[in-house]
């Protein structure tokens, strides 16, 4: 027979003003199974908690109901008190008569009646509560960082320096990301490579970092503290253990005119290549699409069409037969830092709803380029060795027009957000240009200059005041080629006059978008993303680097447009969160998870299909001889988040959420109805 104790709290005046707490305690005390019912001014205070402990000890209570505030507020407090008195904490529940009753009603009589109802409902539930044990799961103290840009590099280094083992996975042949392409960085104009490459080398040499470049995450299983990650090692066609990065293969390669991705197609590379001289790891990759050997194979030639690189390699590292390999890693936490790509200005759009800018001539007018291409033109390591020369005829451009907000803040083109970094890098571009071409004219078309950041506004003002950039407020309507010049038609909204400029070159500050394929990765990781593909943080203010999946964190521009300082700060924050997680030997989880009754389960696996967390697994049921009887569903308590969707879906009622069983819910409803 149940022996329930009920404790009604006044919460000072909060409840007591509207609810007659003494009457609630009196009425509830008459219910069958309730052996103790009292009211008190502040139940969460020390004397209040002492009342509960004392009653448990003296009256041998089998369940406790605290009629007070929201369980969000004090469930832990009261469960701890109950646990302190020797009662299983999950036999203690709260009836919310504050947020759900006293705060929202005025009629004292009716509110008191409602409070009695609310308490009665929980009493009936608690009568059917069973003791539950907190789930303890071990933590694998290794972290996976996805993406080797500045955010991923920072996260990996912070984690490794903090004592954690790190697996850093990078899709491209080298780490470094977009930052390695930049010439100089705002707001200090320090050389991007100079501050980045030492960090890249540090990653490579760190004893606790396993760098996996030219790899992709293929599958993720498991849950916080215990993820199993399958990583695809794409075939480099070069044996990493033999190659010493001498570069002889690249010199020997006969294919020399492949547009370089690193140089944003403004330069050329060979078919066997490292993206840039400072690449980490400094091991080449054969681009099979362009390689003469593989092209010959694809055409069905029996004789090898080429093999110059293999002949040139003194160490026998070239391996044409290499295939993709799969590696499995066990990790306890994952940091997603996949970064961004530029919005496509031309016709090819990666997603429905996005439109290009035909009116800006990108792709048809050679002297219309995007921001990253300008970075390569201005970079000492770029295709022009740092000389600013326009792509069409290699002349020094005397007039450059910069267009801000190309894609950004343009709902008609499919992007309504501000890309945040363009105002700053355009100001930087005007400076770099004027530093290289002293008599050059830099004109910027802008809608607003958004330069919020330490030293940022000063930086944009410097572009205007010291380096003579002319800012014209307004969007450009059309850019087209007119003989030797690029015509720019715009409007100066401050003067109210149309503007027409004969430019030598036009640079488009295109919007930042999440990387292609981010949706697939997010689905693999069970994290949510917004309609643009940016990974959603768990809370925009209070949990900015966590995702809604426990153990998966986010850093850098895959979450929203971010500049370098923001990305680095986020990466360090994510690393701190992971290290905090790793400081526990075991993780404690609420035991309110789903459990399957194997005897009842028919193995239809509806539950598996509806589970948002992938917590449902298959379990074989065998007889004593080992014959397979049936395959049933089984819930992994580490993954289950206790949402109850499976319970609502199961046709045979064989899966139940602990602490919220059908029996308990029906009892609550009946308590109201009867």
């Amino acid at each position, binding site marked *: 027979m149940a022996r329930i104790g009920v404790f009604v709290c006044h919460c000072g005046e909060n409840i007591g003003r509207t609810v007659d707490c003494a009457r609630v305690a009196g009425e509830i005390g008459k219910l069958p199974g309730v052996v103790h019912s009292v009211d008190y001014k502040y139940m969460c205070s020390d004397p209040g908690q002492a009342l509960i402990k004392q009653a448990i000890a003296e009256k041998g209570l089998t369940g406790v109901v605290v009629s007070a505030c929201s369980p969000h507020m004090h469930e832990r407090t009261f469960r701890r008190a109950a646990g302190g008195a020797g009662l299983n904490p999950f036999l203690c529940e709260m009836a919310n008569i504050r947020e759900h009753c006293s705060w929202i009603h005025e009629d004292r009589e009716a509110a008191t009646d409602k409070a009695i109802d609310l308490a009665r409902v929980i009493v009936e539930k608690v009568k059917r509560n069973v003791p539950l044990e907190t789930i303890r799961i071990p933590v694998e103290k290794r972290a996976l960082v996805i993406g080797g840009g500045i955010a991923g590099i920072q996260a990996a280094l912070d984690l490794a320096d903090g004592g954690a083992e790190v697996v850093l996975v990078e899709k491209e042949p080298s780490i470094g990301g977009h930052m390695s392409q930049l010439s100089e960085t705002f707001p200090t104009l320090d050389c991007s490579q100079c501050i980045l490459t030492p960090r890249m080398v540090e990653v490579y040499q760190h004893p606790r970092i396993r760098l996996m470049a030219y790899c992709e995450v293929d599958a993720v299983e498991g849950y916080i503290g215990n993820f199993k990650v399958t990583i695809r090692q794409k075939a480099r066609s070069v044996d990493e253990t033999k190659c010493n990065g001498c570069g002889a293969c690249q010199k020997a390669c006969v294919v020399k005119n492949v547009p370089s991705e690193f140089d944003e197609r403004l330069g050329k590379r060979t078919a066997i290549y490292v993206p840039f001289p400072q690449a980490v790891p400094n091991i080449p990759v054969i681009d099979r699409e362009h390689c003469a050997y593989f092209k010959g194979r694809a055409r069905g030639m029996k004789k090898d069409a080429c093999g110059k690189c293999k002949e040139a390699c003194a160490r026998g590292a070239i391996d044409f037969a290499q295939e993709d390999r799969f590696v499995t890693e066990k990790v306890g936490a994952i940091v997603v830092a996949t970064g961004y790509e530029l919005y496509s200005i031309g016709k090819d759009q990666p997603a429905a709803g996005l439109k290009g800018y035909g009116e800006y001539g990108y792709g048809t007018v050679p002297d219309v380029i995007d921001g990253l291409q300008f970075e390569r033109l201005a970079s000492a390591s770029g295709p022009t060795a740092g000389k600013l020369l326009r792509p069409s005829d290699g002349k020094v451009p005397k007039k450059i027009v910069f267009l801000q907000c190309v894609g950004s803040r343009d709902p008609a083109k499919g992007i309504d957000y501000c890309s945040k970094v363009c105002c700053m890098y355009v100001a930087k571009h005007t400076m770099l240009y004027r530093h290289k071409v002293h*008599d050059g*004219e830099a004109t910027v078309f802008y809608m607003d200059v958004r330069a919020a950041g330490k030293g940022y506004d000063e930086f944009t003002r410097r572009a*205007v*005041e010291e380096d003579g950039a*002319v800012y*014209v407020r307004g969007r450009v309507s059309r850019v087209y080629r007119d003989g030797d010049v690029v015509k720019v038609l715009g409007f100066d909204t*401050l*003067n109210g*006059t149309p*503007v027409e400029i004969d430019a030598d070159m036009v640079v488009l500050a295109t919007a930042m978008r999440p990387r292609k394929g981010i949706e697939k990765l997010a689905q693999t990781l069970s994290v949510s993303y917004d309609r643009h593909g940016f990974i959603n943080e768990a809370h925009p203010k209070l949990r900015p680097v966590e995702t809604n999946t426990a153990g998966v964190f986010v850093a850098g521009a895959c979450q929203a447009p971010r500049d370098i300082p923001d990305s680095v700060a986020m990466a360090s924050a994510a690393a701190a969160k992971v290290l905090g997680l790793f400081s526990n030997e075991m993780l404690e989880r609420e035991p309110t998870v789903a459990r399957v009754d194997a005897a009842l389960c028919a193995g239809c696996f509806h539950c598996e299909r509806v589970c948002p967390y992938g917590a449902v697994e298959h379990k074989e049921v065998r007889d004593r001889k080992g014959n397979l009887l049936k395959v049933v569903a089984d819930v992994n308590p580490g993954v289950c988040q206790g949402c109850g969707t499976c319970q609502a879906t199961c046709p045979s009622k064989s899966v139940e959420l602990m602490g919220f069983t059908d029996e308990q819910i029906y009892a609550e409803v009946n308590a109201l109805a009867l």
Partner: protein
Amino acid sequence: MRTHGTDAPAHGPLSLRAEMKERTGKNTARCYQCGKCSAGCPMAGETRLRPHDVMRLVNQDARARLLADESIWLCLTCETCTERCPNGCDPARTMDALREMALEASPGSPPRALLAFHRAFLDQVRWTGRSFELGLVADYKLRTGALLQDVATAPGLVARGKLGFVPHPIDGVKEVRRIFEACEEATRAASGKKEGA
């Protein structure tokens, strides 16, 4: 850059901005078009170009449009704009420099009445060391022939003692005249040098 209609061909990159820096010692590029100057300008309701427009056009090298516009002559040089500018720009001094440039480019360019008023005012200062209102009015009316303009306001001004009948020259009138002469001499020398070169 070419703006439709009013602008002259460019004089090389940003030449007006550079010339203004030479004339006023101030960097007009510091202007970020907040409009505080125009917000305080007593003539903002009367002129086509307000102080912030003038600053912007200087930065855009719109020399011809600026020098041809009457607005620079309607400026009262009260200097409220300069006083209030958050960025240490000097719209009043810029306006002054533009007037100088307009006169140098073509002495007949200012509107006749406005030039007459400026001349009449300077004459008063030259002869009395200060502004003598009645003399100013008489001088202006003789220069423009607008004899009956605003006559109706005279009795009221006289009654409130705003219109004295006798000038009160300051003690240092001679020194003031010497300043005028020195300025004229310097201007002659400068123009002679220009012609010589």
